[in-house]
């Protein structure tokens, strides 16, 4: 087995196991920490796909900021084991799981039959640009997608204002007097 394959299977197993524990753990803090683990291993997978800068950004933004916020909020709530972590109803539960399974089967089957991804390696990023170069990424982001970039800036501003307003509000129409 080559090093590449070993790395992929190791990281894939890590990702899947930690992602599963996000859903299956009944203590939400364990869920949040496993999600952080998932983020870090997805970042490692980005490295195997030669998206070095994105891997770094993934760790800074997701693992370093977003998930810390989640964990902090959960610890503030101080929830112990939940009485009802999962939805009730045997029939609806089975139905949900069956639908998830069939959707997954459809997706995987579609990917194996479609054969879209038999692109020769010669075209890959690794061979056209030096390893980890971010100039092409910057050009794409700031020259061709500059409108989207600015729109995201506006979105972030709106979100920041909205979040502050939400956290300062006394409950709005639901306020207790």
């Amino acid at each position, binding site marked *: 087995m080559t090093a590449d394959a070993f790395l992929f299977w190791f990281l894939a197993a890590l990702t899947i196991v930690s992602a599963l524990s996000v859903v299956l753990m009944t203590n939400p803090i364990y869920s949040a920490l496993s*999600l952080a683990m998932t983020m870090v291993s997805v970042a490692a*997978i980005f490295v195997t*796909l030669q998206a070095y800068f994105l891997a770094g950004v*993934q760790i800074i933004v*997701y693992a370093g*900021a977003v998930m810390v916020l989640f964990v902090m*909020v959960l610890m503030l709530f101080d929830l112990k084991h939940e009485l009802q*972590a999962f939805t009730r109803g045997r029939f609806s539960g089975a139905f949900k799981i069956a639908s998830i399974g069939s959707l*997954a089967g459809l997706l995987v089957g579609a990917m194996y039959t479609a054969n879209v991804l038999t692109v020769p390696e010669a075209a890959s*990023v690794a061979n056209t640009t030096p390893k980890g170069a971010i100039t092409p990424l910057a050009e794409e982001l700031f020259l061709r997608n500059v409108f989207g970039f600015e729109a995201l800036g506006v979105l972030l501003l709106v979100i920041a204002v909205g979040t502050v307003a939400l956290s300062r509000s006394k409950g709005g129409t639901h306020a207790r007097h």
Partner: protein
Amino acid sequence: MPDISILTTITPNHYLVLSACLFMIGVAGVLLRRNLIVLFMSIELMLNAVNLSFVTFSHSFGKVDGQVMVFFVMTIAAAEAAVGLALAVSIFKRFKEVNIRFFEHLKG
């Protein structure tokens, strides 16, 4: 001797299948869990799965468009988490509970 090339040769399809699995785990979380914050986390999981496919396509087609999309997705995910958590905090202040079973009626 069975053919083990599927194990030893890693193609973009492997990454896409992994991404599909992650996405499905996220969907399962949204459908099965009842904790508001775990629902948010499952959505983050789905967004990550999408990011993974974007990066895979970007790698195999040799273009950086996919990576730019990942940037956009990450920004939106961070924004969504901020608003979602602010909502969760205000809901927790009001109901002292984050299990969606307790506030499934719109009436306060």
